[in-house]
């Protein structure tokens, strides 16, 4: 009941329609198979040794043949000496042909029998024709032999396959690194006994102990201990997160300084890391338009090249005979081998998606990623996106004739609000504890959602109401003139207000202001550098929108309903991005060309945005846009280079100016340049 594999066993890139299968495993190409056999950990030692010896021996013999052939080309020995040299080269080339040539030929013919016309097949046929011709020449005592060509091409083509397979495997490095994050074993406590258990065998509900420096094998909930945990691999944020009883912990993250015991809640494919990896792999398996373009070009390219090779063959056959015809058409095939062309574009995107994932940016598809490079306008939600979710208590107004001071008012408010989960309440409680204001005895607490909270403060002997103006009025507490003035003053500064009152009137007003995220300014600046316009869209009142916009030096639109936001986004024709916290702006996120949800934390799988930022760092937005632009630049460079190189190469080869060995070498150099150019995205500073 095995799953149909989607990814190459060696390089973990998505498999093509007709994968190369061997020993029950699927590879994307012959090169990956070879490389895996030689360097893969799973491969049997003996077999790897054999393949490696094959490569070593063939290289050595080919080098000898080359040296002999230089001598023959240049010094034009007597015929008798030449014959002896030819026989020596024939002998030396037998192992090369047998060791490298036969598997290559068999593999090529196998794909021919499936009616897949591939370049390998033609190259194999060309190489073998040259070889057979040389044997005939040697036996017939003629001078023209191409043992050097035949063996060198085999060595170079094989080496080229290794290189490609290597490069492709590198493109998946980011995923491999993620896979290696979870430990192989974990300490499971059962009946008071601690045992090392393989991570796959951990079940839901098991108690797992993690020492400092170890990483979590599965997701879970802490039941004992305190510690800081490094979650940067999931969130891209380097600040450690404090964990205590009841906190959630995630597989792949690292426990820093304390001992934790947790109950496993997400194991195997349910763990956060597995879901994360699965989402990245899903993104990678969907082809982006550029990748499809590259596919299309190479699918047109192959028949064109084969036709040119055919014409070259016919032309030279009639002009100079079969020898020249074979060599020149072989050169055409070798120089134009479109392998690099086909691989480079997808590889650039794979590398970039992997790199983004490592930064805690989850891009859903390659297509999204590509579109991101065209972005001209970024819309930002305000609350929770540009500003922190928590608000800061920034002004306290005590009604003059109430006989209270600031400490009394805050004590009363904090005492009632200490039971509430409301962000404003939390912020008040935090303020009180920072200042050391005491909490008082309260009873008969009652929360009215969206309005406020009421309860009896024992030493006052009164029921106190805390909440919005509506809540006050509803409970018969009307504002006097001073309160009304203060309300207007604070609201115009963009503050959110909470009132507190009892008995016959309102006794105080608390003003909360939003705090910008630390990196908001920097992020906006970097977006400006990328020549991207930024606009704030918010449902909040226009004062607070203006206040935030003014600090950042950008435009803002306040008091928008979700529908207004959608309309505002659709008004613009340029490719746009909407950034929100993914909770209350789902319609806006989907209205924009690309929706980016920020601070998704570990709920990634639930999010519906095109791009999810696991962390809360706004600077990741310009970063990922720049990354996508760089990626597009690389792909363009690669396509241009491959196209130019091939066109010139084909013409030169068809005219008979290029020896097959030189063509094979040139092809490898081109491949290396193109693949290397894509891989540069891995390290480049963005």
């Amino acid at each position: 009941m095995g799953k149909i594999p989607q990814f190459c066993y060696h390089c973990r890139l998505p498999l093509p329609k007709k994968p190369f299968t061997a020993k029950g495993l699927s590879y994307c190409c012959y090169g990956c198979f070879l490389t895996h056999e030689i360097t893969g950990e799973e491969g049997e030692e003996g077999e790897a040794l054999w393949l490696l010896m094959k490569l070593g021996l063939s290289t050595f013999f080919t080098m000898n043949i080359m040296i002999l052939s230089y001598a023959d080309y240049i010094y034009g020995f007597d015929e008798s000496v030449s014959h002896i040299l030819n026989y020596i080269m024939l002998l030396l080339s037998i192992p090369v042909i047998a060791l490298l040539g036969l598997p290559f030929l068999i593999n090529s013919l196998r794909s021919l029998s499936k009616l897949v016309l591939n370049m390998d097949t033609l190259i194999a046929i060309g190489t073998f024709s040259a070889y057979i011709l040389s044997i005939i020449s040697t036996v017939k005592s003629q001078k023209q032999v191409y043992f050097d060509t035949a063996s060198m091409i085999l060595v170079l083509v094989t080496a080229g396959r290794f290189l490609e397979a290597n490069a492709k495997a590198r493109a998946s490095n980011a995923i491999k690194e993620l896979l290696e994050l979870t430990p192989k074993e974990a300490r499971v406590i059962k009946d008071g006994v601690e045992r090392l258990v393989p991570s796959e065998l951990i079940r839901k509900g098991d108690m797992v102990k993690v020492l400092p420096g170890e990483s979590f094998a599965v997701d879970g909930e802490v039941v004992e201990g305190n510690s800081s945990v490094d979650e940067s691999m999931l969130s891209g944020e380097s600040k450690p997160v404090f964990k205590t009883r009841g906190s959630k912990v995630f597989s792949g993250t690292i426990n820093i300084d304390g001992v934790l015991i947790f109950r496993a809640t997400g194991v195997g494919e349910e763990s956060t890391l597995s879901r994360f990896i699965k989402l990245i792999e899903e993104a990678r398996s969907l082809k982006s338009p550029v990748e499809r373009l590259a596919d299309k070009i190479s699918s047109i390219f192959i028949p064109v090249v084969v036709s040119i090779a055919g014409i070259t063959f016919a032309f030279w056959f009639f002009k100079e005979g079969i020898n020249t015809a074979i060599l020149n058409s072989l050169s055409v095939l070798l120089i134009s081998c479109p392998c690099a062309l086909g691989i480079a574009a997808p590889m650039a995107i794979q590398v970039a998606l992997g790199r983004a994932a490592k930064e805690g940016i989850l891009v859903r598809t390659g297509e999204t990623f590509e579109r991101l490079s065209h972005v001209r306008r970024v819309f930002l939600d305000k609350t929770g996106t540009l500003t922190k979710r928590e608000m800061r208590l920034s002004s306290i107004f005590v009604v003059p004739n109430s006989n209270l001071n600031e400490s009394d008012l805050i004590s009363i408010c904090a005492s009632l609000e200490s039971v509430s989960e409301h962000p404003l309440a939390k912020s008040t409680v935090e303020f009180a504890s920072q200042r050391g204001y005491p909490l008082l005895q309260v009873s008969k607490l009652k929360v009215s959602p969206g309005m406020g909270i009421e309860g009896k403060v024992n030493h006052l002997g009164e029921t106190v109401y805390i909440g919005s103006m509506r809540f006050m009025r509803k409970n018969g507490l009307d504002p006097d003139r001073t309160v009304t003035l203060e309300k207007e003053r604070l609201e115009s500064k963009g503050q959110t207000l909470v009132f507190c009152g009892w008995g016959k009137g309102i006794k105080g007003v608390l003003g909360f202001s939003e705090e910008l995220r630390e990196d908001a300014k920097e992020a906006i600046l970097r977006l400006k550098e990328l020549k991207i316009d930024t606009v704030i869209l918010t449902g909040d009142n226009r004062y607070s929108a203006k206040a935030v916009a003014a600090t950042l030096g950008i435009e803002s639109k306040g008091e928008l309903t979700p529908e207004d936001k959608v309309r505002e986004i659709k008004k613009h024709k340029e490719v746009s991005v909407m950034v929100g916290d993914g909770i209350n702006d789902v319609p806006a996120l989907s209205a924009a060309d690309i929706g980016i949800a920020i601070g998704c934390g570990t709920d990634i799988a639930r999010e519906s945005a095109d791009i999810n930022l696991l962390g809360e760092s706004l600077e990741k937005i310009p970063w990922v846009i720049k990354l996508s632009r760089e990626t597009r630049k690389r792909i363009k460079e690669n396509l241009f280079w491959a196209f130019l190189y091939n066109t010139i190469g084909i013409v030169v080869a068809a005219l008979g100016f290029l020896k097959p060995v030189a063509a094979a070498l040139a092809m490898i150099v081109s491949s290396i340049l193109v693949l290397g150019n894509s891989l540069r995205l891995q390290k480049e500073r963005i």
Partner: protein
Amino acid sequence: MVSLIRRMIEYPLVFAAGLIGSFHCVGMCGGFPIAVTSFSTTKKTRIPKNQILYNSGRVFTYTFLGATAGYLGLSLREIEPFLGWQATISTVMGVLMVVVGLQILGILGEKTLPGFNLYYSFLKKAIASFIKQKGLGASFYLGLFNGFLPCPLIYAFLFKAAASGSPEKGATIMLSLGLGTIPAMFLIGIFGRIASLKLQGSISRASGFIVVMFGVFTIIRGFLPYFFKFGNTHLLH
């Protein structure tokens, strides 16, 4: 006659450059001969065998590369547009040698092409596999592939080999250089170290100086024929 004398001086000079330059090799590739020594687990008598095979593989690759460079140099001279550009080719090669020499000295920064890493990591992987395999065959192949590792010293003398415009001369130049590197690589394989790191470093930098000298020499030699030709015509008139 002149050319015979020149060769009798030139190749030993290249050999000497190899001797001094090998301190650079020890710094870069010294780990390989040490690894080769560890291949034999039994008797000490087997050590030299592994070392000999490793070094032959390495020097064989150098010689092959030298012959190829010489062949390319020759082909370059014979291609239509470059016909009779011998002096220019020689000069270009000489300049490249000077550049590489200055890079070894650390005066010029090294620039890498995209994909260079790919080539490098491919060879490293192959070499690592040979190290894993151990044995006499692995020693030889390790040396063979080691020879292909990018190395400024080798590049510099390959430019010289190309300037020589003959596979035979190119091969001899690189063979001389390779033989010159054997003593140091052999000794480090057996003793694990041959000089203090500081001394090693300064001798290694000296090899940069030698490369620059050879480069200048190659440039001058490129122009020598012109010199004589002009000189002669001048004398005749």
